[in-house]
């Protein structure tokens, strides 16, 4: 018998609440700020047989919404070789080739038993502070094997039939530069799973196992229905989009991400087989990560799509084995963020061709992981590490957001006053970057300029960035944004890195500076159709220069700040011709 619609609607909220409460528990008790502040973690409920996502929390990191099912599937596979899971087991691992993303993300998976069988799995993922490897914090732009990025733990039991295995924790702790933080985060994740199990059991007591099971089946079917309805609204046919990574940090050769998207009625095929093969440097990603990134892109476009495996039911993925987008161990994956940002960009570009109204242009497209490191006069080592922001793409209803965070994350940037108080640096500029947004009927959001001067005697600078060669693209006829730029000052003046936005160990001295000029977002629609008065307002605000107003928008601004209507009309007519 089918479940009644009212119970279904209520159970949907109750299931989501369990995942949300697990998120809240970990955020509150985690030790490391990457989880506590940046919410680089996620929780959910997963199918007892397939590991498919049933329900996932709303407050975790967006990229995990698509990737967690693969972690549960990996545990189910591993457990099958040992006769299956037992009541009281909790599995732990960080293998990115099986479970997606990178080594810093530790996953816990726990079966919940009812009446002797698995009702579903609960899972928790959190980004730990340090998991070993060559570089503190595990962001190693020069890695050519995962062994240089950190320890790799396959699915093993943290609890065996309810018995806690301290030996596993001892192994993990011995391989981290931050064992206390690791222990605190691990405990937070265990707390979250315990709470989830308690809440789930209460729900099952109240509504019965068969009713809850029916609800989960129905919710998955409805998610698939919803996605099919969204896809059916798109015109059938095949659309292609290509975009590029600058290089892998080892060879200065651009890497292609190509998407051929086919819509057939209510089915969608995402074919990435024309993309580059795997590379030496750390911008490879696993198949699980690729699928998760597409999910993130689709959820940004469609909005109300639930976090449930049903969403991907009507979507077929074609990804070559051992390619850039489906890599095998031990090829490095530490820089996975750059590749998934580019994947999101190609999905945005393809969707813009079939559904221009709901389209968004590409966002700035790089996390720009920048670190400065050195020793203080007293010998103490310091490392300043942060990600930097850029502009969001324009969209069918307005201009892009200035200085936003990356589509895969909701993390905020630390206050510059905190950075200056903790490290021997002085910011000399923290400003919007004029003209960095793509031109269009709607303008892309602006990127930023961050200039940092060294107060200590000397320091080494590391940068992991992208979008140095190919700018974030506009859509529906909108212009591209500016590329990412990085400058470092030495005695003989300013330089730029040979790999454009990636560099290891740049030496700078007291008073010398580095400057990051981040990309804006792409534009939307024809810039020649933007109201000249709005272009004028942009010039007055300083978002757009008078030169760019003329060159990209065909709007002539007079020295007194007003629009030269006659010259503008003539220039726009000439451009349109």
């Amino acid at each position, binding site marked *: 018998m089918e479940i009644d619609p009212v119970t279904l609607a209520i159970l949907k909220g109750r299931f989501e609440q369990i995942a949300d409460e697990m998120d809240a528990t970990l955020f509150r008790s985690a030790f490391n700020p990457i989880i506590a502040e940046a919410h680089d973690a996620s929780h959910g409920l997963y199918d007892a047989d397939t590991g498919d996502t049933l329900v996932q929390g709303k407050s975790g990191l967006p990229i995990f919404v698509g990737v967690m099912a693969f972690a549960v599937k990996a545990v189910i596979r591993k457990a099958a070789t040992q006769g299956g899971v037992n009541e009281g087991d909790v599995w732990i691992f960080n293998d990115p080739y099986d479970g997606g993303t990178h080594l810093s993300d530790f996953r816990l998976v726990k079966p919940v038993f009812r009446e002797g069988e698995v009702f579903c799995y609960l899972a928790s993922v959190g980004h730990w502070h340090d998991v070993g490897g060559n570089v503190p914090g595990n962001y190693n732009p020069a890695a050519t094997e995962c062994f240089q990025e950190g320890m790799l733990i396959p699915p093993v039991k943290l609890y065996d039939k309810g018995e806690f295995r301290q030996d596993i924790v001892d192994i993990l702790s011995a391989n981290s530069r931050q064992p206390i933080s690791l222990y605190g985060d691990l405990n937070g994740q265990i707390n979250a799973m315990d709470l989830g199990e308690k809440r789930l059991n209460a729900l099952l007591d109240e509504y019965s196992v068969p009713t809850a099971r029916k609800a989960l089946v129905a919710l998955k079917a*409805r998610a698939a229905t919803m996605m099919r309805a969204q896809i059916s609204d798109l015109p059938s046919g095949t659309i292609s989009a290509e975009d590029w990574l600058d290089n892998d940090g080892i060879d200065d050769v651009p890497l292609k991400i190509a998407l051929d998207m086919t819509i057939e009625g209510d089915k969608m095929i995402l074919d990435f087989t024309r993309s580059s093969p795997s590379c030496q440097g750390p911008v490879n990603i696993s198949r699980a990560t690729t699928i998760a990134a597409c999910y993130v892109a689709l959820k940004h476009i469609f909005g109300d799509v639930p976090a449930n495996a049903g969403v991907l039911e009507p979507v077929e993925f074609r990804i070559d084995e051992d390619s850039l987008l489906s890599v095998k161990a031990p090829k490095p994956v530490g820089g996975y963020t750059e590749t998934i940002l580019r994947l999101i960009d190609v999905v945005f570009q393809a969707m813009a061709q079939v559904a221009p109204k709901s389209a968004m242009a590409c966002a700035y497209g790089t996390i720009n992981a920048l670190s400065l490191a050195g020793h203080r006069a007293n010998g103490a080592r310091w490392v300043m590490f942060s990600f930097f922001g850029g502009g969001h793409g324009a969209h069918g209803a307005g201009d892009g957001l200035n200085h936003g965070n990356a589509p895969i994350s909701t993390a905020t940037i630390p206050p510059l006053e905190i950075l200056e108080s903790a490290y021997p640096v002085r910011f000399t500029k923290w400003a919007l970057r004029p003209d960095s947004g793509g031109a269009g009927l709607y303008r892309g959001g602006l990127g930023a300029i961050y200039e940092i001067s060294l*107060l200590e005697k000397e320091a080494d600078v590391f940068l992991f960035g992208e979008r140095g060669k190919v700018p974030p693209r506009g859509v529906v006829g909108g212009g591209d944004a500016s590329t990412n730029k990085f400058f470092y000052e030495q005695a003989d003046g300013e330089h730029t890195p040979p790999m454009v936005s990636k560099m290891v160990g740049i030496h700078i001295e007291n008073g010398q500076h580095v400057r990051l000029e981040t990309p804006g977002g792409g534009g939307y629609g024809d810039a020649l159709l933007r109201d000249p008065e709005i272009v004028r307002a942009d010039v007055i*605000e300083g978002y757009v220069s008078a030169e760019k107003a003329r060159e990209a928008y065909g709007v002539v601004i007079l020295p007194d700040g007003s629009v030269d209507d006659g010259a503008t009309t003539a220039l726009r007519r000439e451009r349109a011709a």
Partner: protein
Amino acid sequence: MSGNIVIGVDVGGTFTDVFVYNEATGQVETTKVPSTRGDQSKGFIEGIRRKVADFGDIRTVVHGTTVGTNALLERKGARTGIITTEGFRDVLEMRRRDRPTTWGLRGSFDPIVDRPDRVEVEERVLADGTVLQDVDPEAVKAQARALAEAGCEAVCVFFINGYANDENERIAVEAVRSVWPTAYVTAATEILPEIREFERLSTATLNAYLQPVVSSYLDRLEQGLDKKGFHGELLIVQSNGGVMGVGTAKDFPVRTALSGPAAGVIAAQAIAEAAGFSNIVTCDMGGTSFDVSLVAEGAAALAPQTSIDFGMVVRTPMIEITTIGAGGGSIASLDASGLLTVGPESAGSDPGPVCYGLGNKRPTVTDANLILGRINPDRPIGGKLDRLDIDTAREAIRTNVSDPLGLTVEEAAEAILRLANAKMAGAIRLVSIEKGHDPSKFAAMPFGGGGSLHTGALIKEVGLGSALVPRFPGVTSALGCVVADMRHDRVQTVNRLLSDIDAAALGSELQSVARTTEAVVTSAGAAFARIDRVFEFDMLYIGQTHTVAVAVDPTVGLTTHAIQEAFNTAYSAAYGRLLDGIPVRVMNYRVTVIGRRPAFDMGVFAPKDGKSADECRTGSRTVWAEGAFHEAGLFDRLSLAVGERIAGPAVLEQPDTTIFVDPGLVATVDGFGNLVIRPEA
């Protein structure tokens, strides 16, 4: 000080609530008049005039205001300029690199100060307080003159690292004041001398932006009261739940950002305390939203900051209020997969629910309550409408929900309520869990007009122990004004290792700050039962980013050892395990001075000459609950005597709210006139 009357006035969007307390006779009276948009002071004075013949009899007027909140939300503050350090004019616009919503990159942000009105001067202070470059007052004056000529009415001076050393900022502010045409000059470190540039600048800029609006409103209010012969004290409720003098409010208008809702929580806290409840969840249900706030162990939870809107950050201690999109006007609809959803889309109060007959055709939570018999169609709350259109509401639920789902209209309406209740229950659970509390130890306290229809369901849904419905839920905020204490908060960033701190000197500094703060508190001339001083450090292990609040007592002589011990106690209470051997840092100190106002006797609400439940029964109505029709008794709530007991299903009516007692619950009148609702024993 003359007169015996204390008055609380809460000005809301629709109504101005007035609460009159005669200290000599112990008598209380309430009244409600329409708010006067444009100039709220008119409705304010009119409301008092209805109840008080001679304004000379009034000792104190305490006011919860939404003038500041509305100016922020509607962006109707003054044109404001910012003078800042070279290289940093975009701090306000760059925020903390966030976005309005997690999903969909379609958000935008329009800073309240346009870019050309944000100007820079050469100067620089380093993080350790060293002045790297002096500021030139003449250069500052030139920038200030240019801003004033461009049309700015208010200005904020904000320098990087001003929290560590405000020397340059003070010189600049003095220079600005010497040429600025109005009194509206805000110094960022006077508002918030705390590390974190965006939060400090945003708070200070909003203060500048509000100053002309709030000051002129308070001026009009003072003049209006004066004209009526008032010569008592006028106090304003702050977002932290304390009150301040009107002069302080003009200097720190940003502290009124959540003045209105804070007053409600304070009243709830006082009512609950008198009634013997130390753990409550306040539930304020409006047209579009449901606001939840937690009072644990008798203390309202305070949040260090809040966002009034995306990127509009105010960092001053505020009563923590969590809002979800489930109000009386929340719309019920089916999503693309045919699943029933309620909210966050809302019909608000205009056009409002279908039954208002003002043009909305999509069913809302209020429509569901009406159809199920929980609201009296002939006596709508609020008095704006004469009657509610039950037939059209039925029709809307039939076409939009019951027909597509194959349910009867009653079943569909109950489904809408169950979903709305489930959302509210979820908010309560999440708020209590985030604070580490067990929701079953809490009682729900509804205030505002709509909440009392849903509290019974919340008891069942969340497993709350009980619900406490105050005697006048509709005027709770006005009562809160009368009972709130006077309070002033100060913060200063220290940002030093504990081992580097001269504890004795810091202790003297804290005491000296407490003395100047107390002068602010006492300057308004209010009478206090006593004055409390609270001293806290925000501390953390080096390497961490989240601080813990550590209570210290400088009056007994502060030592490094005592601070470390206090930190250990606070940290283990928050996280369980101490990290031995890791040095600790003092990030900020906080000094709070609280002037405790004379206790208000909640016994005044006890019904006098109350009647038995039978005598208060005014009739009966068919209600639908838990899948069946019931004949529910209707009662005149305010006439019920202390100790009277009514078993659900029952509907209790009073002018400002309607209370639904679900089947299986029992309502009892306590000694303070509250209705305590509990599961039937």
